[in-house]
Protein backbone atom coordinates (compact mmCIF):
# COMPACT_ATOMS: atom_id res chain seq x y z
CA UNK A 1 0.00 0.00 0.00
CA UNK A 2 1.24 3.45 -0.87
CA UNK A 3 0.19 6.76 0.72
CA UNK A 4 0.85 10.07 -0.99
CA UNK A 5 0.25 13.48 0.52
CA UNK A 6 -0.15 16.22 -2.05
CA UNK A 7 -0.46 19.99 -1.93
CA UNK A 8 -2.02 21.11 -5.21
CA UNK A 9 -2.49 24.70 -6.33
CA UNK A 10 -5.77 24.90 -8.24
CA UNK A 11 -5.10 28.38 -9.65
CA UNK A 12 -1.88 27.38 -11.39
CA UNK A 13 -2.78 23.68 -11.85
CA UNK A 14 0.54 22.80 -10.24
CA UNK A 15 1.58 20.23 -7.69
CA UNK A 16 3.43 22.17 -5.01
CA UNK A 17 4.53 19.22 -2.92
CA UNK A 18 4.15 15.49 -2.77
CA UNK A 19 5.37 13.09 -0.10
CA UNK A 20 5.29 9.36 -0.74
CA UNK A 21 5.06 6.76 2.05
CA UNK A 22 5.16 3.01 1.71
CA UNK A 23 3.38 1.04 4.43
CA UNK A 24 3.59 3.98 6.83
CA UNK A 25 0.10 5.45 7.10
CA UNK A 26 0.71 7.22 10.47
CA UNK A 27 3.55 9.30 8.98
CA UNK A 28 1.44 10.12 5.93
CA UNK A 29 -1.43 11.25 8.16
CA UNK A 30 0.92 13.42 10.23
CA UNK A 31 2.29 15.01 7.05
CA UNK A 32 -1.21 15.77 5.86
CA UNK A 33 -1.99 17.62 9.11
CA UNK A 34 1.34 19.47 8.86
CA UNK A 35 0.59 20.63 5.30
CA UNK A 36 -3.00 21.59 6.14
CA UNK A 37 -1.59 23.92 8.77
CA UNK A 38 1.12 25.21 6.44
CA UNK A 39 -1.37 26.09 3.67
CA UNK A 40 -4.31 27.19 5.81
CA UNK A 41 -4.07 30.78 4.50
CA UNK A 42 -4.19 29.65 0.86
CA UNK A 43 -7.73 28.57 -0.06
CA UNK A 44 -6.67 27.68 -3.61
CA UNK A 45 -4.37 24.96 -2.31
CA UNK A 46 -5.81 21.50 -1.75
CA UNK A 47 -4.04 19.23 0.72
CA UNK A 48 -5.04 15.61 0.25
CA UNK A 49 -3.90 12.23 1.50
CA UNK A 50 -4.29 9.59 -1.21
CA UNK A 51 -3.86 5.84 -0.78
CA UNK A 52 -3.74 3.06 -3.36
CA UNK A 53 -2.07 -0.22 -4.17
CA UNK A 54 0.43 1.54 -6.44
CA UNK A 55 1.53 5.03 -7.44
CA UNK A 56 0.39 4.28 -11.00
CA UNK A 57 -3.14 3.66 -9.72
CA UNK A 58 -3.19 7.13 -8.17
CA UNK A 59 -2.06 8.67 -11.45
CA UNK A 60 -5.20 7.20 -13.01
CA UNK A 61 -7.67 7.90 -10.22
CA UNK A 62 -6.32 11.41 -9.49
CA UNK A 63 -4.55 12.47 -12.69
CA UNK A 64 -5.47 16.09 -12.00
CA UNK A 65 -2.92 16.26 -9.18
CA UNK A 66 -0.11 14.39 -10.90
CA UNK A 67 -0.42 15.35 -14.56
CA UNK A 68 -3.06 18.07 -15.00
CA UNK A 69 -1.78 19.08 -18.44
CA UNK A 70 -2.64 15.62 -19.75
CA UNK A 71 -6.35 16.21 -19.08
CA UNK A 72 -7.87 17.88 -22.10
CA UNK A 73 -10.89 17.91 -24.37
CA UNK A 74 -8.86 16.20 -27.07
CA UNK A 75 -8.23 13.33 -24.63
CA UNK A 76 -12.00 12.92 -24.36
CA UNK A 77 -12.31 13.03 -28.12
CA UNK A 78 -9.71 10.26 -28.48
CA UNK A 79 -11.55 8.20 -25.88
CA UNK A 80 -14.84 8.69 -27.77
CA UNK A 81 -13.36 7.39 -31.00
CA UNK A 82 -11.69 4.50 -29.19
CA UNK A 83 -15.04 3.45 -27.69
CA UNK A 84 -16.84 3.71 -31.03
CA UNK A 85 -14.05 1.82 -32.79
CA UNK A 86 -14.07 -0.93 -30.19
CA UNK A 87 -17.83 -1.27 -30.48
CA UNK A 88 -17.71 -1.43 -34.27
CA UNK A 89 -15.07 -4.18 -34.29
Amino acid at each position, binding site marked *: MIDVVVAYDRASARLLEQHVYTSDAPSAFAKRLELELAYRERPDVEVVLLSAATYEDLKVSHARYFDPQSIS*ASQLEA*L*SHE*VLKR*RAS
Partner: protein
Amino acid sequence: MAGARIIVFDAGDQDQLVRDIAAGFPTSIIDDKRKSPMHGYRAVHVIVSHPLPYEIQVRTTLEHAWAQLSERLADHYGFELKYGGGPTSVRDALLAFSDFFAALGALVADGRGGVLNEQAAQNAQVMLTRLPEILEALEIK
Protein backbone atom coordinates in the same frame (compact mmCIF):
# COMPACT_ATOMS: atom_id res chain seq x y z
CA MET B 1 -13.82 13.76 4.68
CA ALA B 2 -12.79 10.23 3.75
CA GLY B 3 -13.70 8.39 0.61
CA ALA B 4 -12.70 6.00 -2.12
CA ARG B 5 -12.85 6.09 -5.88
CA ILE B 6 -13.22 2.97 -8.01
CA ILE B 7 -13.10 3.13 -11.82
CA VAL B 8 -14.68 0.29 -13.76
CA PHE B 9 -15.12 -0.25 -17.47
CA ASP B 10 -18.85 0.18 -18.05
CA ALA B 11 -22.29 0.47 -16.47
CA GLY B 12 -22.67 -3.30 -16.17
CA ASP B 13 -19.52 -3.56 -14.03
CA GLN B 14 -20.63 -0.46 -12.14
CA ASP B 15 -24.05 -1.92 -11.28
CA GLN B 16 -22.49 -5.20 -10.16
CA LEU B 17 -19.93 -3.47 -7.93
CA VAL B 18 -22.57 -1.24 -6.34
CA ARG B 19 -24.68 -4.31 -5.58
CA ASP B 20 -21.65 -6.01 -3.98
CA ILE B 21 -20.85 -2.98 -1.81
CA ALA B 22 -24.48 -2.63 -0.74
CA ALA B 23 -24.57 -6.34 0.14
CA GLY B 24 -21.49 -5.92 2.33
CA PHE B 25 -22.85 -2.78 4.00
CA PRO B 26 -26.64 -3.22 4.26
CA THR B 27 -27.19 0.25 5.76
CA SER B 28 -25.37 2.01 2.92
CA ILE B 29 -27.11 4.74 0.94
CA ILE B 30 -26.88 4.64 -2.85
CA ASP B 31 -26.80 7.97 -4.67
CA ASP B 32 -27.19 7.18 -8.38
CA LYS B 33 -26.10 10.34 -10.17
CA ARG B 34 -26.60 8.69 -13.55
CA LYS B 35 -30.36 9.13 -13.16
CA SER B 36 -30.10 12.74 -12.07
CA PRO B 37 -26.66 14.12 -13.06
CA MET B 38 -25.27 16.94 -10.93
CA HIS B 39 -24.41 19.65 -13.48
CA GLY B 40 -23.31 16.90 -15.86
CA TYR B 41 -21.50 14.79 -13.28
CA ARG B 42 -22.48 11.12 -13.56
CA ALA B 43 -21.40 8.31 -11.25
CA VAL B 44 -22.81 6.18 -8.47
CA HIS B 45 -21.88 7.18 -4.94
CA VAL B 46 -22.36 4.75 -2.09
CA ILE B 47 -22.34 6.21 1.40
CA VAL B 48 -21.18 3.62 3.88
CA SER B 49 -21.31 4.11 7.66
CA HIS B 50 -18.50 2.15 9.26
CA PRO B 51 -19.14 3.73 11.78
CA LEU B 52 -18.30 7.17 10.32
CA PRO B 53 -19.72 8.07 6.90
CA TYR B 54 -17.44 7.09 4.04
CA GLU B 55 -18.17 7.89 0.39
CA ILE B 56 -17.30 5.37 -2.30
CA GLN B 57 -17.41 6.82 -5.82
CA VAL B 58 -17.96 4.20 -8.51
CA ARG B 59 -17.32 5.60 -11.98
CA THR B 60 -17.11 4.14 -15.45
CA THR B 61 -14.09 5.00 -17.59
CA LEU B 62 -16.15 7.54 -19.54
CA GLU B 63 -17.67 9.13 -16.43
CA HIS B 64 -14.22 9.38 -14.88
CA ALA B 65 -12.71 11.02 -17.97
CA TRP B 66 -15.51 13.58 -18.00
CA ALA B 67 -15.17 14.27 -14.25
CA GLN B 68 -11.41 14.81 -14.58
CA LEU B 69 -11.91 17.33 -17.37
CA SER B 70 -14.62 19.07 -15.35
CA GLU B 71 -12.27 19.37 -12.36
CA ARG B 72 -9.45 20.61 -14.57
CA LEU B 73 -11.70 23.24 -16.16
CA ALA B 74 -12.97 24.27 -12.72
CA ASP B 75 -9.36 24.88 -11.68
CA HIS B 76 -9.00 27.19 -14.67
CA TYR B 77 -12.38 28.98 -14.74
CA GLY B 78 -13.35 28.78 -11.08
CA PHE B 79 -14.91 26.26 -8.73
CA GLU B 80 -18.43 27.50 -9.50
CA LEU B 81 -18.24 25.81 -12.92
CA LYS B 82 -19.01 22.53 -11.15
CA TYR B 83 -22.15 23.98 -9.61
CA GLY B 84 -23.87 25.66 -12.53
CA GLY B 85 -21.71 28.79 -12.72
CA GLY B 86 -18.76 29.90 -14.83
CA PRO B 87 -18.68 30.80 -18.54
CA THR B 88 -21.90 29.72 -20.28
CA SER B 89 -20.13 28.36 -23.36
CA VAL B 90 -17.89 26.09 -21.28
CA ARG B 91 -20.73 24.98 -19.00
CA ASP B 92 -23.00 24.15 -21.95
CA ALA B 93 -20.21 22.25 -23.71
CA LEU B 94 -19.50 20.24 -20.57
CA LEU B 95 -23.19 19.33 -20.27
CA ALA B 96 -23.32 18.37 -23.94
CA PHE B 97 -20.25 16.20 -23.57
CA SER B 98 -21.75 14.55 -20.48
CA ASP B 99 -24.86 13.65 -22.50
CA PHE B 100 -22.68 12.40 -25.34
CA PHE B 101 -20.68 10.16 -22.99
CA ALA B 102 -23.91 8.84 -21.46
CA ALA B 103 -25.06 7.87 -24.94
CA LEU B 104 -21.67 6.29 -25.66
CA GLY B 105 -21.89 4.44 -22.35
CA ALA B 106 -25.24 3.00 -23.39
CA LEU B 107 -23.66 1.82 -26.64
CA VAL B 108 -20.84 0.13 -24.74
CA ALA B 109 -23.36 -1.63 -22.49
CA ASP B 110 -25.23 -2.75 -25.60
CA GLY B 111 -22.02 -4.16 -27.05
CA ARG B 112 -21.50 -6.22 -23.92
CA GLY B 113 -24.89 -7.88 -24.03
CA GLY B 114 -27.09 -5.15 -22.60
CA VAL B 115 -30.32 -3.97 -24.13
CA LEU B 116 -29.83 -1.71 -27.13
CA ASN B 117 -30.89 1.80 -26.32
CA GLU B 118 -31.94 3.12 -29.74
CA GLN B 119 -32.42 6.63 -28.44
CA ALA B 120 -28.89 6.63 -26.98
CA ALA B 121 -27.47 5.37 -30.27
CA GLN B 122 -29.23 8.14 -32.18
CA ASN B 123 -28.11 10.73 -29.62
CA ALA B 124 -24.50 9.60 -29.95
CA GLN B 125 -24.61 9.94 -33.73
CA VAL B 126 -26.13 13.42 -33.54
CA MET B 127 -23.61 14.48 -30.93
CA LEU B 128 -20.72 13.27 -33.07
CA THR B 129 -21.55 15.90 -35.66
CA ARG B 130 -21.41 18.57 -32.97
CA LEU B 131 -18.17 17.31 -31.45
CA PRO B 132 -15.79 19.86 -33.06
CA GLU B 133 -17.69 22.87 -31.69
CA ILE B 134 -18.01 21.25 -28.26
CA LEU B 135 -14.29 20.46 -28.14
CA GLU B 136 -13.43 24.01 -29.18
CA ALA B 137 -15.34 25.38 -26.17
CA LEU B 138 -13.61 22.95 -23.81
CA GLU B 139 -10.02 23.66 -24.80
CA ILE B 140 -8.18 25.59 -22.12
CA LYS B 141 -6.86 28.76 -23.73
